[in-house]
Each structure stands twice: as structure tokens, then as C-alpha cells.
């Protein structure tokens, strides 16, 4: 009997292989349909404020609003912010909206060549501050809640330190504040001995989107260039997988350039000189002292983060002046904090509970 012979490709096995190839081939139209069907952004939103290329989006659903203080999401400048509202069931925004929070998100827009001079000062003391002022005016309150993700968290912490009187609660999501550890490949690559940031920005103007994208891809080359295509082949007849895959790929390939001066300052002052945590950063002539942050903070850290290793986020709680501070470490990666099923099941309900306990109900 051939089937009892070890290592032998039996007719059954050959047939199975053939059937698999056929199944995958037959799934190709399904793949094409999934690409066409791909939509990102789960919650209806409309812009309520514009400034230059910035749009401040307000999420509007039928959910009853229960809290007075608006919650502002501040995303990084390197990708689009819809990762926080990617799809049904994978939307951080939806968690907060369903709990009754009035949620807003800053869409930074795409910097044009002329935006190369925009600095960290422009993004914090101008754009974020104006968005916050707009919300204070609109909602009739003195303070807003801020959720900052990744680089957006760093900008949020700078803003909260400079304008503490306008921030009621601060949620830091996989946000770096201390670059003393060299765990991250990005920290190694941006070492001043090997990386001339001044020359890059002088020549290119803005940090080019394609260059940023390739840099991120090469942080995990095996996973991104080998394992991903294999996993795709194995799952290309699974509709649910295809929908998630293309939504994610849409976002991953939607990199935008970063305004040159901001990128220069971020690389130089944060990655190379680590000024923020040391209290040596100056923005708009004001020294950024994280101890000025006295509002409640929660620091959400991704344990498996290859972009922002926990060591870059952990020191935040000890650097601020808040007495109400909490850290949640969660066993996912950087993007997993926003899109993994596990985070949506176990992390975001807890984060909403935390904010709910510190929010003023409407009508009080």
C-alpha cells in the first residue's frame, strides 16, 4: 500500500495539492471583488472645522451623548488617522461613541511642498490648540479629553504640558516619550552618525512618503515581504480574511509625507537628542515640562511593539505631575492596539471605563 510508505506523495496528497491550487485559482474573482468592496472608515463623520489642510472630524451616530467633555483623537503625521476607525468591529472610535462620548478626530491632511516649514510648534500650539479651542467653544466647556496615538501621543503630551489648563484627561496610546533605549531599529537607523537629517530635509523638503513606507516595511522584512504573501495565499478563499486584509493594506499603503521641519525636529530633538523626557525641549519659545501635566493619564503600551518599544513609553507616567496615572500593557503590536480583535474585546472597554469614571455627565 503506497499510503503506508513514509514520505510518499500519495495520489490523495497529490489530489489535495491540485484541489488547493484549483481552489485558490477559483478564489481570484473573490479577491478582485474584495478589493472593489474595500471601504475604510466605519463611523459616519463630518468635518466641523478646517484650517489649511487640517480637518477636524466629528463622529455622528445615533448613539446618545452622555458626557459633556469632548474627546479629541490625535493621530501621527506619517499615516492617515482612519486606522482608529478602520472597519466595523475594528473601530476604536466606535467604542467611545457607543459609550456616549462626543468624539472628534484630527485629519492632518497631506502636506504639500509649501508645508515643509511647518514645525512641531505649528502642529501643537497652532493646529491642536485651535482644534481644542474650537471644541471648547462648540461644547461650552473649558477642557477636552485627548487620545494621542504614536507620534500623535508625543504631540499630545507636548501640548498637554504647554496648555495643561485645556486638557481634562490624557490617553497615551503606544506613544513614545523617551528615546534613550536603542531597542527600536528606528532609533538605530536615525543615529546622528549614520543619518544626516538636515541634508535629507534640505534636499527633499518634506520627508517623502515612499521613503517612510519602505523604512517601516524594512523594520520587519521577513514578516512584511515573505510571511504576509504566504498568509495571503493560504487565506485567499476566506472572505472575512480578505476584507480585513485589504482594509489593512489600504491603510498601510496610504503613507503621507511628513512636513520637513517637523520631521527634522522630531528626529533631531527626540530620536537623536532625547530632549522631551529630559525637559530640554522648547516649542514656540516655551520649555516643555511634562511635570506640568497634572490631569489624569492612562498610558496604553503595546508589549510587542516594534515601532515604539515599551521602553519608549513607560517613563511617561513618572515624568508627569499627575497623581492619577495608570499604565496598561497589552500583548499585541503597535497596530494591533487599534485593530486586533483582542484589543477590541479586552483593552478598549477598559479604556472607556477609565475615561467614563473621570468624565462629567451631561446636564450636570
Amino acid at each position, binding site marked *: 500500500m*503506497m499510503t503506508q*510508505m*513514509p514520505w510518499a506523495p500519495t495520489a490523495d496528497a497529490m489530489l489535495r495539492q491540485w484541489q488547493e491550487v484549483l481552489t485558490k485559482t477559483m478564489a481570484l474573482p473573490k479577491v478582485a471583488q474584495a478589493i472593489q468592496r474595500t471601504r475604510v472608515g466605519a463611523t459616519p463623520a463630518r468635518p466641523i472645522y478646517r484650517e489649511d489642510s487640517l480637518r477636524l472630524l466629528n463622529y455622528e451616530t445615533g448613539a446618545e451623548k452622555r458626557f459633556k467633555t469632548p474627546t479629541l483623537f490625535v493621530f501621527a503625521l506619517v499615516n492617515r488617522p482612519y486606522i482608529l476607525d478602520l472597519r466595523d468591529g475594528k473601530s476604536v472610535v466606535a467604542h467611545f461613541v457607543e459609550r456616549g462620548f462626543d468624539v472628534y478626530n484630527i485629519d492632518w491632511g497631506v502636506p504639500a511642498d509649501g508645508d515643509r516649514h511647518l514645525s512641531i510648534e505649528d502642529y501643537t500650539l497652532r493646529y491642536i490648540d485651535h482644534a481644542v479651542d474650537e471644541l471648547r467653544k462648540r461644547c461650552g466647556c473649558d477642557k477636552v479629553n485627548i487620545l494621542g496615538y504614536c507620534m500623535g501621543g508625543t504631540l499630545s503630551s507636548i501640548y498637554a504640558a504647554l*496648555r495643561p489648563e485645556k486638557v481634562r484627561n490624557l490617553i497615551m496610546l503606544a506613544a513614545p516619550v523617551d528615546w534613550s533605549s536603542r531597542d527600536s531599529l528606528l532609533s538605530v537607523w536615525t*543615529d546622528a552618525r*549614520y543619518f544626516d537629517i538636515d541634508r535629507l530635509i534640505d534636499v527633499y523638503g518634506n520627508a517623502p512618503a515612499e521613503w517612510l513606507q519602505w523604512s517601516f516595511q524594512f523594520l520587519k522584512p*521577513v514578516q512584511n515581504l515573505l510571511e504576509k504573501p504566504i498568509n495571503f495565499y493560504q487565506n485567499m478563499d476566506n472572505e472575512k480574511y480578505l476584507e480585513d486584509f485589504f482594509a489593512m493594506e489600504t491603510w498601510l499603503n496610504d503613507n503621507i509625507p511628513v512636513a520637513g521641519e517637523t520631521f527634522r525636529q522630531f528626529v533631531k530633538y527626540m530620536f537623536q537628542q532625547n530632549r522631551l523626557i529630559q525637559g530640554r525641549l522648547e516649542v514656540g519659545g516655551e520649555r516643555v515640562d511634562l511635570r506640568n501635566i497634572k490631569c489624569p493619564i492612562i498610558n496604553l503600551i503595546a508589549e510587542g511593539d516594534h515601532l515604539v518599544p515599551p521602553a519608549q513609553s513607560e517613563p511617561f507616567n513618572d515624568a508627569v505631575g499627575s497623581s492619577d496615572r495608570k499604565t496598561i500593557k497589552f500583548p499585541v503590536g503597535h497596530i494591533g492596539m487599534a485593530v486586533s480583535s483582542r484589543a477590541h474585546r479586552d483593552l478598549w472597554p477598559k479604556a472607556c471605563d477609565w475615561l467614563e469614571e473621570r468624565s462629567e455627565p451631561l446636564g450636570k
Partner: protein
Amino acid sequence: MSGEQFGIPGADQFTRFWGDFVGRLSANGVAPPSNDAAEAWRKAFFAAMTDHLDSFMRSEQFLAAMKQSMEGALAWQQTMNQALQKGLSAAQMPSRADTDHMVRLIRGMEDRLVDRLEELCGRVEALEKGAGAKAPRSAKR
């Protein structure tokens, strides 16, 4: 389902060869891989490769190569920029340097205007306070 039902030419010879080959492997104590084992092998291979690549991308050798290639790319881009700037200037068209200059001028003007407005707002607030008027609360910017 048996091989004979397919009647693939040469299948029997190949099967015999393969059987002989794997028989010899088994006799030498090499176990046949299951699907799970193949998956485990693949994972182990990729994990090892990931670790080695990560170490390599932190090495002096890689960083020096990265620096060199970046310098080359920047030098090329700079040459292109200069050539384009000269060409556009010859055609009396604005280049990026010209628009940059314009943006700088506008930003400078905007900064001076905002500073002046803030100064005026401060003076108005001071006057209102002095007059004891109940002024509407203005957001601090």
C-alpha cells in the same frame, strides 16, 4: 483513491523511486514530516531569519552601507533639483526654491500679524477690565 486510477505516465516509476528514497531515509531514522511539522519548520526558519536580519540591520556594516547609499541618493536628488531650478529659471517659471521663498515671506507676515493681533487683544482686555465691563470670555491661544 489509488494512483492507478489516474494513469499518469511515469507515475509508477516515480513512485518506486520515491519509495526507495524515503525508505532509505526512514531506515536511517529520518522521520517523515507531517503538515504541522512543515509549518513548524517554516515558522522556525522565518523566526531565525527575522532575528538574523534584525541583528544585521543593526550592524556597523549595514549602517555604513545605508549611510553611503543615502548620501548617493541625496547627491543625485540635489543635482536634479539644481538642474530643474536652472531650467525653470531659464524658462522664467517659478521653481520650488521660489515658492519656498514666497511661503517664508507669507509665514513671516502671518506671524507678525498674529503677534500684533494678540497684542491688540491684550490691550482691549486690559481696557475692558479697567472699565469694569463684563467682557465675554475669550479662549487663550
